[in-house]
């Protein structure tokens, strides 16, 4: 599988590491809290929801750590010289590809699980279908990064639509936060997809994603504090 790395803006590599760590931190909080609720309720959907967020957290954590290593490598080498054979940069490029592959696998697995949990009718066959279609598309595509962004955008759009419907029925601040949170994740993800052509969209995409994750955290805080 030939894979391009996730688009990034070089001068943003340092802050990018911090933003990814924040994403990892927020999603791990939601994942662990879901596990705590599962232990009391024993509802399978809650366990899968928590697992989905933990997979997403893992994808960000790995990417953040590898991006930090890349950032350190780039800081110690001349990037132009490096691309033409400098061993430090060669290592950076390999790390970047590795970070992207891990990020794609865990993020796709996590979002597929969240999309499955948001379905009204669930079943193991449905879950297997979602996973097999997603990973076959990623594996056999000539442009896996584009397929990844399309897949994750579809998942997030679907999840947002489900939560909009839900908010329309329940009408509470918590459901509103969850709907807006997933909606922002969709918009942020779409901007990251377009950033392959317009580099600055990468930064605005990360900011919109941050707002999305903060809204989801806000909903969790409302649930716990009420």
């Amino acid at each position, binding site marked *: 599988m030939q894979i391009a790395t996730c688009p990034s803006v070089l001068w943003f590599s340092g802050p990018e590491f911090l933003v990814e760590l924040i994403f990892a931190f927020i999603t791990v909080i939601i994942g662990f809290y*879901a596990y705590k609720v599962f232990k*009391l309720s024993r*509802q399978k959907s809650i366990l899968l*929801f928590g697992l989905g967020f933990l997979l997403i957290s893992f994808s960000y954590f790995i990417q953040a750590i590898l991006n930090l290593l890349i950032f350190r490598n780039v800081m110690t080498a001349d990037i132009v010289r490096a691309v033409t054979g400098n061993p430090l940069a060669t290592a950076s490029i390999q790390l970047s590809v590795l970070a992207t592959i891990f990020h794609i696998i865990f993020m796709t697995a996590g979002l597929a699980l969240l999309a499955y949990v*948001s379905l009204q009718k669930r079943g193991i066959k449905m879950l297997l279908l979602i996973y097999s279609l997603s990973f076959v598309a990623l594996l056999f595509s000539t442009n896996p990064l584009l397929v990844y962004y399309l897949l994750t955008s579809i998942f997030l759009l679907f999840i947002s639509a489900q939560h909009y419907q839900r908010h329309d029925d329940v009408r509470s601040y918590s459901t509103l936060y969850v709907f807006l949170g997933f909606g922002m994740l969709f918009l942020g993800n779409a901007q990251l997809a377009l950033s392959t052509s317009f580099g600055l969209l990468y930064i605005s995409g990360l900011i919109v994603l941050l707002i999305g994750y903060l809204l989801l955290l806000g909903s969790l805080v*409302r649930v716990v504090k*009420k």
Partner: protein
Amino acid sequence: MSKKRGRLQIIHDILGAIRDKGGTIKPTHLLYKSNLSHQMMGEYIKELKEKGFITEDEGKKRSKTFSLSSKGYEYLAEYRTVVRFIESFGLEEEA
């Protein structure tokens, strides 16, 4: 017509009935308080014992009683949060 009680609500009602009786209750009282059929009651009791929410004790004159465990008390304390979490993130179990 009143809304059908969900699984979590039924568990909450059973545990709440035991708590309201001081933490220990006789099966006949529990059946009356929980408003369930004998068969349904048996299934829920089996599940609650397996999860460690209640324990079955032999009382005086070999009469059977159910007692609320610390995990059961924890469930009652956290019930509202669990329900709010499920409602907020749309995680209800299928009907």
